[in-house]
């Protein structure tokens, strides 16, 4: 079986499990709605203030939802005793990493899309014009976040205090991605063209490539035993 096919099978398995159990997605969406409430209550109804902090708040929402969502995926494998199955899968373990990454990416992007829609509706923002630029920035940022998140998630599933250790490990590594995406999102929401934040996008692409390559190469060591 080819590398791509094996990765696809892992990703498809995750989607299928999620479609049938609706465990993570349902709860995560509900969590996203709750986040919206929390932001509303903590920031107050002032629209000026909200638009000023919107890029940061948006990413805060993505990160909180992502931390919960990504932390879950490998824990679920452990809970259902599927870990051995993954270990026994023949061939390069990089394929399993890519498959898991694809599943996680899909999950995060879905939650992010809904969060953006909720923001637009409840805070009365017109985001239609900036949507393509926003999609590029959010997509690149989420890829970097999920790339390290998938690697670390596999690790922390086997540690003590995993819910705590996962963000503690992931957040410092994500500082470059975070800075780049928030700055780029800020520019995009202000109506500036993507070219004005080209350096941030380049940094995001570089980060994504580096993280994915590390993940592919080191997943073998994380998965074993």
């Amino acid at each position: 079986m080819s590398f791509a096919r094996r990765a696809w099978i892992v990703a498809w398995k995750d989607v299928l499990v999620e479609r049938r159990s609706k465990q993570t997605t349902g709860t995560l969406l509900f969590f996203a709605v709750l986040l919206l409430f929390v932001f509303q209550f903590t920031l107050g109804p002032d629209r000026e203030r909200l638009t000023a902090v919107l890029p940061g708040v948006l990413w805060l929402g993505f990160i909180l939802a992502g931390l919960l969502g990504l932390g879950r995926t490998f824990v679920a494998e452990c809970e259902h005793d599927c870990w051995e199955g993954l270990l026994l899968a023949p061939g390069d373990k990089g394929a399993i990493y890519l498959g898991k990454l694809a599943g996680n990416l899909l999950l995060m992007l879905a939650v992010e899309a809904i969060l953006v829609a909720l923001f637009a509706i409840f805070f009365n923002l017109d985001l239609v014009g900036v949507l393509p630029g926003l999609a590029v920035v959010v997509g690149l940022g989420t890829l970097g976040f999920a790339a390290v998140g998938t690697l670390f998630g596999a690790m922390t599933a086997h540690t003590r205090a995993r819910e705590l250790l996962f963000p503690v490990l992931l957040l410092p590594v994500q500082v470059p991605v975070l800075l780049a995406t928030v700055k780029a999102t800020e520019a995009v929401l202000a109506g500036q063209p993507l070219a004005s934040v080209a350096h941030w996008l380049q940094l995001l692409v570089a980060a994504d490539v580096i993280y994915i390559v590390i993940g592919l190469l080191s997943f073998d060591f994380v998965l074993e035993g």
Partner: protein
Amino acid sequence: MTRILGWLAILGLLAGLVMGFGVAPRELTQGNVQRIMYLHVPSVWVAYLAFAIVFVASLVYLARRAPGADRLAHASAEVGVLFTGITIASGAIWGKPTWGTWWTWDARLTSVAILFVLYVGYLLVRTMVDDPERGARYAAVVGIVAALDIPLVHFSVYWWRTLHQPPSLIKPGAPTMPPEILVALLVNFVAFTLLYAYFVVKRVWLLEREQEALA
């Protein structure tokens, strides 16, 4: 051997003190406060050296599975975190009289702070895994991710904001420092590197004994 290294480190530090307080002239604008540089700059050098060694030792551990490489990475990370802490603390003490603030979210301060949390996380992984072999493997992966993340952190934080004075030692052209200051700084570089080596050797030895006792 270790003892000799320790004495050399002590001698180096004494020489560094004499150079920093006795030989090096008082800086004109900042006054005596500037002498913190002889602690601050060598500390940050040791921190980066320590984390570079964590990176190499992590790679070696994953490739060869040599327990010695893991112990070296572990010891080096601990010493690195210590010196990152010293860098931040001495920088804050230097910043208060010269910039008027203990802390500012300037580019280089921020990257050192991120360095600190990155490697505290690295050390945390080890304490959170019950199986020592697995802990070593996970730590090695985190050590590699953290090291490759450092350039990204630098770029992102640099673009984000910068206020720190530009590097005064390693830059194109001849150094602009008076030779006495430069020599004093270099003596401290050597002394701190010796101190780092001594700490690491001692800590590796201790880790070895710990593992023997547990085995």
